[in-house]
């Protein structure tokens, strides 16, 4: 305990110096918010089924949600500027105003709510396993004997280590594709992360028929639309748009279009919980 305090205290000096310089260096080049009839939306560009860059533009469920919401807010498709929002930078992008909102498999958590606000949720995902078609994993207890794979530092990897299967052999890689190649060759038994992401991979052309979802609901991940902290006006508007999207059936259509081929047993649209 004491040692940790010492570490913390000694880091103060350096941190203060660093933050001070960082503030000075802020440039106003990334002014994307508000005005001019344009909207900048943060998305993932490398997750099949959710947000992926393809030769014909961006595709995926998050993209469809983002387009629908943007339309309800009064922006046409040509007014949207897409911006990649890597997981690590999402909070900073919102805080600096580089993006107006973020639709990028952004799970609503208490720690994140200290930095940003959310609208939604618009999707309920669970942590699940992707396994080879011929294999079977029935319950979470089987996990301790398996070789699992996940992405370095991700919430899913931490969940495995701390909650579900502390004794499991967990191989962490920098990206999902490394895990998929291991799963294909038999070096690992399962790839674990949110089922929505897994469904996107299972539905990819080169993997169709090879992998399936195990159907274990290991955790609840409520995907929300990230917005600047305290922007209740935008939050209300986005919530209304999401509600409309569910009510008029576009939500279900978007889910089916993007996750269809994976036999993904998705949850019905979640209730809006994030209110000013």
């Amino acid at each position: 305990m004491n040692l940790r305090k010492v570490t913390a205290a000694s880091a103060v000096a350096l941190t203060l110096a660093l933050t001070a310089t960082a503030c000075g260096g802020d440039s106003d080049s990334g002014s994307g918010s508000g005005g001019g009839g344009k909207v900048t939306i943060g998305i993932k560009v490398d997750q099949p089924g959710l947000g992926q860059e393809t030769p014909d533009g961006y595709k995926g469920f998050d993209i469809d949600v983002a387009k629908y919401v943007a339309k309800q807010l009064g922006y046409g498709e040509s007014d949207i500027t897409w911006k990649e929002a890597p997981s690590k930078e999402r909070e900073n992008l919102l805080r600096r105003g580089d993006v107006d909102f973020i639709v990028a498999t952004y799970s609503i958590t208490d720690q994140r709510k200290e930095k940003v606000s959310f609208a939604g949720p618009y999707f309920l995902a669970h942590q699940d396993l992707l396994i080879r078609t011929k294999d079977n994993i029935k319950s979470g207890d089987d996990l301790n004997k398996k070789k699992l794979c996940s992405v370095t530092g991700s919430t899913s990897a931490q969940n495995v280590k701390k909650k579900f299967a502390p004794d499991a052999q967990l191989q962490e890689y920098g990206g999902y594709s490394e895990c998929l190649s291991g799963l294909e060759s038999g070096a690992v038994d399962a790839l674990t992360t949110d089922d929505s992401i897994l469904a996107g991979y299972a539905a990819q052309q080169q993997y169709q028929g090879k992998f399936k979802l195990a159907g274990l609901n290991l955790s609840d991940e409520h995907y929300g639309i990230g917005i600047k902290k305290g922007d209740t006006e935008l939050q209300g508007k986005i919530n209304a748009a999401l509600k409309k999207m569910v009510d008029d059936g576009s939500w279900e259509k978007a889910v089916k279009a993007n996750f269809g081929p994976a036999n993904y047993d998705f949850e019905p649209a979640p209730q809006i919980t994030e209110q000013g």
Partner: protein
Amino acid sequence: MFDFLEGYDLLGAFWVTVQLTVYSAVGSLIWGTLLAGMRVSPVPLMRGFGSAYVNVVRNIPLTIIILFTAMGLADTFGVTMGAADDVKTRVFRLAVLGLVAYHAAFVCEALRSGINTVPVGQAEAARSLGLRFTQVLTLVILPQAFRSVVGPMANVLIALTKNTTVAAVIGVSEAALLMSEMIENEAELLLISAIFAFGFVCLTLPTGLILGWVSKRVAVKR
């Protein structure tokens, strides 16, 4: 301001970084010295192998080498480094292997430049006394070469310390992996990065200062 540090084993993660650094430093010093010996040897085949190894390995990005040890050697060819059922130990050893393979090339080149500082007359004198090549190298040339390359070696060691962060791509639970876990959970990118940057400075600054002092003390006065 720092209450989010609760529950994270910061020192444990940096301890793994230190272990990675020490094992890889020892390994690459040995392998690098052998390579340097090959590069100055009178046998053309060994010279060829030495220069081919150095030129290939030092021009491949470290990330690719480390990834290859895990995905190529372990996943595909089944090289498990004696830890088939223990992923944690396996990735650690694979990471050390990759780091040694990569940094040995730099150690070799630093050492070879040191060998070039030893006047050629000394090698000729040693030869004329009847010493064999290995004796010339180990008794006359290398002891002087090492003394003149402490500074450049410190550079390689500092680079190695920081390059251990690449081991996170195959899941070695060192500092960089803990950093990505913390950033994922805490949404404090700048602060967390600064803490880890500070941690690395704590490791490398003394290394540089101590080896700089050693370098001055042992330098061969010519």
